[in-house]
């Protein structure tokens, strides 16, 4: 449909008088521009020479430079590269583990009709509202018992445990919308439960998988508190805790801080711009499907 045709057919019966119809785009632009000021400041300051940032943070970058970005990448302590590697590793491992475990568990619980299955579902769903602060203190004790404190594996396992309820919520809800007959037919043909799930069910869950992967990915990439506590003050730095440390060490050097923030956000931002529809659906999934 061409743009002109779309305009000709309004989404709603025209509520506003045609004489005031220019008001809506104007209001949207005004509110949106005000809302976006902080986003503009990050962008402008990232490409501004360090000394220009503090006196006039909101000015246009009249002498644009990539100096902040190269300075961050060339730091002698490799803070950026260490953080990036850790964040990539933790996010990839956690998201993969979470997707596999919660798809299997969600499917299992959605297809189980026993009293125990229903009880397990309820216990899992109550985990959706547990604030991390309630469990972080004892978690450090649990991880010490397994010798996993201050390790990437410990953080990954914690992430999986903490986000499994959300994954089950998304996958179980989706499984209930697909008919069980196909699975039954495959089982009668002699396929094992394992084959049925990975060959037949999992490919059908693709929309739920996309939502879950984006949700897990964004939350774990941006997570601050859990890596701060579990990885501890050693060299276990993720992009978020790395930025936090940089503002402590280089209080005055805003060039470095903004460069680091920009680079740490870039992967998420590029994916967001490319897959906007999926991001919006993924991050509000469970909410909008109701």
């Amino acid at each position, binding site marked *: 449909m061409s743009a002109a045709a779309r305009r000709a057919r309004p989404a709603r019966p025209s509520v506003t008088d045609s004489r005031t119809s220019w008001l809506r785009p104007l209001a949207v632009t005004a509110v949106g521009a005000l809302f976006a000021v902080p986003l503009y400041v990050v962008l402008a300051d990232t490409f501004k020479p360090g000394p220009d940032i503090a006196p006039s943070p909101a000015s246009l970058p009249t002498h644009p430079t990539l100096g902040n970005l190269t300075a961050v990448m060339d730091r002698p302590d490799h803070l950026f590269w260490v953080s990036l590697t850790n964040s990539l590793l933790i996010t990839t491992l956690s998201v993969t583990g979470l997707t596999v475990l919660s798809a299997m568990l969600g499917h299992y619980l959605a297809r189980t009709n026993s009293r125990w299955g229903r009880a397990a579902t309820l216990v899992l769903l109550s985990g959706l509202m547990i604030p991390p602060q309630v469990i972080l203190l004892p978690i450090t004790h649990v991880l010490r018992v397994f010798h996993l404190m201050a390790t990437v594996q410990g953080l990954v396992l914690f992430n999986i445990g903490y986000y499994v309820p959300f994954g089950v919520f998304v996958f179980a809800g989706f499984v209930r919308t697909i008919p069980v007959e196909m699975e039954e037919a495959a089982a009668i043909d002699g396929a094992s439960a394992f084959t049925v799930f990975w060959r037949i069910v999992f490919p059908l869950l693709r929309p739920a998988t996309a939502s879950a992967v984006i949700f897990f990915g964004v939350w774990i990439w941006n997570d*601050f508190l859990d890596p701060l506590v579990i990885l501890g003050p050693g060299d276990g730095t993720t992009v*978020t805790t790395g930025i936090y440390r940089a503002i402590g060490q280089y209080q005055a050097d805003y060039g470095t801080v903004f460069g680091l923030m920009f680079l740490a956000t870039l992967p998420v931002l590029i994916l967001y711009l490319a897959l906007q529809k999926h991001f919006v659906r993924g991050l509000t999934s469970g909410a909008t499907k109701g």
Partner: protein
Amino acid sequence: MATSPTVDGGVRTARPEQAPRVRPAAGPGRSRRAHAALARFGLFGAPGLLVYGCFVLAPVALSFWYSLTDDNPFRPHTRFVGLDNYRTLLTDQEFLTSLRVTTVLTAILVIVPNAAGLGIALLLNRKGWFYRAWRGVFFVPVVLSSVVVSIVWTRLLADDGVVNQALGRAGIGAVGWLSDPSLALYSLAGIMAWQMLGFCVVVYLAGLQSVPEELYEAAAIDGANAAGRFRHVTWPLLAPALTINTVVLLISAFKAYDHIQVITAGGPGSGTTATVAFLTLQTGFIANHQGYACAMAVLMLLIVATASAVVMRLLQRREVDL
């Protein structure tokens, strides 16, 4: 932000049409089926439940247990102290302040993004690239890290920051957005509201787009003006969106930590922006009173559970009453 268990599909497991079609046979067939069911549980159910049990359920139980002790990593012997920690909490000025701070923060964070999000969603509820693009802009802070958002806003609201520079040009004196103890909490709440706004916008937009057009036409034919159409058609049909936004905002307000840690570290002054969640971690990890911190954590869990149950009950009743 955890998504709420509000959506009814999540909790329901029983499906009448899934009742067993084959009557269970007696004898060896039955035990083979029991074996298969056990194998299926071991393969598909157990791994996820095991990790959840170890890293969520066990710590919750441990929190209850520690809250009855005087656990402190620097004391060799941990004693069982019964409800002493809870008794101390009720008269602990620091804790009572944190309850007040949490209440104020929660109230602002539930009301502001909900109201502003609805207004913006109504503005954006049109087709075309222009409105889609702006929706995309409003959603950007949702995908940003709270640490990044906190640092940017700290710069904007600093005593010599962008906002005060602009106010200065307008002839208004500098405001201590983050340095004035009576103002910092509101600035903090505003920053968090800014980050959550896009979420509410998107949920309300989805709600608005699910309103059948016929209802608007019917209301228009009945002579309803714009305000009447909103009150009698749009608003009641947005009830599920309101429930979702309120519960999500409520839970994120209770677990707010990152912004407080980065922006104010609980200050300025003593505990003017320290929420219960923040104080719990300070007490546990900085002051090392772990037993006492666990008592705070347990109280926090009870408050969150009660508040979300009450809000869901109230708002979902509205949905049913339509």
